[in-house]
């Protein structure tokens, strides 16, 4: 299945999806040293975003979040790509400075279809995401 969104930060990657239904605040939700989701009441608590194609509706919270994304990259625990319904400035800047492919404006049915563990191909040059099932 192929879905068309908007490529905001270029790149082409294949990887395993990790899907959060909730918005993400990189400051507070993610440990920048390990990439683990550390907010206790988060649905994905204890899992890591390292090397995953990380899908969540949108970012929220402190703009320090951009620095957290940058630190994830420096520590080699960043996600391979980020997929959003709508990217906010925190995630856009974080991905630009960390060279993490970013696609947003994916259709609603994409988020209904995609599940954690799915293999996906992200072509952020074209803004296209394919779910391989």
């Amino acid at each position: 299945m192929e879905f068309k969104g908007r490529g905001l930060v270029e790149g082409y990657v294949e990887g395993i999806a990790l899907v959060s239904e909730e918005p993400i605040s990189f400051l507070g939700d993610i440990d920048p040293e390990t990439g683990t989701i550390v907010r206790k009441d988060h649905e994905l608590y204890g899992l890591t975003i390292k090397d995953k194609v990380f899908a969540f509706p949108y970012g929220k919270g402190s703009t320090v979040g951009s620095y957290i994304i940058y630190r994830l990259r420096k520590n080699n625990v960043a996600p391979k790509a980020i997929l959003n319904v709508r990217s906010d400035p925190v995630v856009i800047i974080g991905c630009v400075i960390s060279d993490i492919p970013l696609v947003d404006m994916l259709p609603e049915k994409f988020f209904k279809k995609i599940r954690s563990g799915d293999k996906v191909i992200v072509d952020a040059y074209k803004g296209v995401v394919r779910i391989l099932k």
Partner: protein
Amino acid sequence: MYLTREEEAILSGEHGPEYQKAMKALVKLGEALGAERLVKVVHAHISGISYQNIGDAGLEFLEEYSKVKVRTYTTSNPIGFDMNLWREMGIPEEFYAKQLRVVEALKKMGVNETFTCTPYYIRKPLIGEHLAWGESNAVLYANSVCGARTNREGGPSTVFAALIGKVPYMGVHVDKNRRPQVLVKVNVPLKNQLYAGILGYIVGTYVKDKIPLIRNIGKISDDIAKALCAGLGTSSSTPLCFLENISPEISKTKIEYSELEKIEVDTQDFKNVIEAYEALNSADTVFLGCPHLSYREIIKVYRYVSKYDRKAETPIVLVTSRKVFDEIPLHVKTLFKRKNVRLIRDTCFVVSPLKYLGIGKVLTNSIKQAYYLSNIHGVKVGLCETRKCIGIAFGER
């Protein structure tokens, strides 16, 4: 997005990888949010520089970009301690060293070491000027009191805007987005900073990202307007509010009153906010200076404390910028020392490592300070107006 030839050159890397990244970040932001071009800014204000907030992530980032220089006049927000008093404040060596690296990185970039949340006291913006400011109270003050133009930039975007000297032309940089959407009628006299801050806070809770027009507030001073902006920035994401008798653009803005949402704010709303905090008649510290105190505000405190013939039982901490600090006459500073009033600069409790300072119970006149101290630091906070804060410090119950 339309880019000039020079902007294209920066984007393609001709000025080096740092400027390229900075330009790319601004262009992507602009494209995502619908800007057609960039606009020059005369003043960038970098927020998010306290090591307490940005940690090693922010430190590494700033150090990497410190290889290059800012291309517009740039000031900086408060850091985690007073540079001259860090030992007295009980700041650990390691924190000091990391914060110093942040400061060095900014210096190398050519950022002015102002360390204040009140950049409008450093350089007061003019009507219509484009700025790239972080720090919500400053953004609201610049737009609403000065009539200048800045969106609510985040820490990293202020760095990029400073490096390029431009921002995407969108949001409240654009005329058509500077119109009120909610009409607020205030049925309570705004007699002091405490009330002004709370009014801002109440309005912000209601408007969220919409632009309010606040009426019926009489002729308020710039200091009172500042407190209002700080409260509004605490509970909302709006960059602009129109203040009757203050905002220079009101007379030029065509306002369709019948189309505005309307709300009223009454005495009970104020009471509810104050009562959500502690009813303290003692504290570890009285904190005044959120946002950083103006010269006038410090002199006012001087007059209040001069009336007492003894020293305060509870230390009164006054926080300001190093610029205003330097303007305060020596006799005022001497009296402060005698009365247990500590005038500090460069910092603020919200961005300092409070766990080392051993402060658990604070009295303040600022809703913004109260909100962040209780939510981020778990400190018990009581809200009172300035004179009452000082009275309690001197043992009046």
